[in-house]
């Protein structure tokens, strides 16, 4: 096992060094004459206005929550899935047992999934389809 992970470690180190290395190769070849205009933020030719580090919508966060919870669930399922074949092929009773255990585990979490679905948390633009919005304010809602 350690031999294999040594390769992984070496790969990680080489991968981390590769990017500076690639940049170093071109260092003496490429021009470097910066000017303030060139170094300014690109906003389609307009003068950049304000800082872009502004607060963004909370829906990104809701997506991240859903992801993290399901990610943990999937990480938990992997060892179980690895033993699944062994149990299933050994005997019928054990197969039914492991099947029901897995189903119970998934079903509990699917309650949460169904809850989020029915409450409309998967709608990117919430409520836009449901309620008729005055076209004058539509832009606000889309922000």
């Amino acid at each position, binding site marked *: 096992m350690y031999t294999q992970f040594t390769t*992984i470690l070496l*790969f990680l180190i080489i*991968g981390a060094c590769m990017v500076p290395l690639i940049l170093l190769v071109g260092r003496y070849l490429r021009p470097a004459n910066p000017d303030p205009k060139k170094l300014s933020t*690109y906003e389609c030719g307009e003068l950049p206005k304000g*800082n872009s580090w502004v607060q963004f919508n909370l829906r990104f966060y809701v997506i991240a929550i859903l992801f993290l919870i399901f990610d943990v669930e999937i990480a938990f399922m*992997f060892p179980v899935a690895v033993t699944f074949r062994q149990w299933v092929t050994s005997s019928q009773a054990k*197969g039914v047992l492991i099947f029901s255990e897995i189903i119970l585990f*998934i079903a509990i979490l699917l309650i949460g*999934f169904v809850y989020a679905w029915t409450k409309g948390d998967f709608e990117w633009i919430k409520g836009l389809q449901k309620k008729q919005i005055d076209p004058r304010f539509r832009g606000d809602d889309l922000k």
Partner: protein
Amino acid sequence: MTSLPEFLKELFESWPLLGILPVWFYSIVAIFGLLFLFLFPFAGVAVYVERKIAGDIQARIGPNVVGPYGILQWIADALKLLLKEDIIPTNADKKLFILSPMLIFISGACAYAVIPFADNVILANLNIGIFYLLAITSMVTLGLILGGWASNNKWSLLGGLRAAAQVVSYEIPVALSILTVVLVTGTLDMAQIVKMQGPFYWNIFHNPFLFISACIYYIAALAEANRTPFDIPEADSELVSGYNTEYSGMRFAIFFLIEYAECFIICAVATTLFLGGWHLPFFDLSSLTLGLRIPLQIMVFMTKSILLLLTMMWIRWTLPRYRVDQLMKLCWEVFVPFSFACLIGTAFWMVLFKGKGIPELILGLFVS
């Protein structure tokens, strides 16, 4: 079953000087070989091929100036990017701006460590192969957020956040499809997964649910790599170029390179998990001698993966782009429920038929 470094070590055991070198030396050789002989040229050629295909689909010629049929175009592109000025905007957060391509490069390149190109030709034969791949590719999200944030550009930030939201959303169906395969194979080891399949027996034909799973994997992985029709994060008509708007020269080239590297990983993983890896249909390669077997296996593996990659390019230039709300809806209201259903369905199939797939069942009918 060994990994490539150990295999090389064994191969050169009797040689005078090379025999005494430790395994990790061969690891380094193999890694550099993979990067410089495969990854970088492959990405370049893929860019050329994609431009040619785009030309064909849109009824124009595509690159045709550098070399015959423009075949050297990718070298010219690489040289051009090398000679471009490296610009870091004054408003950007410089440290994070530099860190972001590094993170993306590591997560894209290190996934190649567990791709089984042929018998014994796998950089690191990990017990947890496919799970390692999931873990290491999940790092890309961090790179995307940082790239978008560090640029201090509205387009970049929005692109980076959209990319992160999209990648994390589509990681769920991808991981669930992989889990479905693991239910059937009972191992996470990539080489072992290929070994479990055979000339007549590919995982995709194991049961109908696994077939749906394979389709879900392919489409969801397409979205995870931010390819059209799911390229919302770099939608050039909305966001200029998304999270890499402010990147120029070689830094941009790294983003570009890793995009193609990721595309190949998706196809290679699909080949390994669902399409029998290096196995040729109806012809058993394992009886051949070593010198003949390994090149043939690599060719079979590459052919399958490249066919999938070409399909990806075909899709890219044929279908229009999704809208961001449709994209999220598609993931959470179609792919996630369906992949859960496939997972449960496959588990049920396994219990019902004691782990036998359709090919085995049919074979069993003939035998009895």
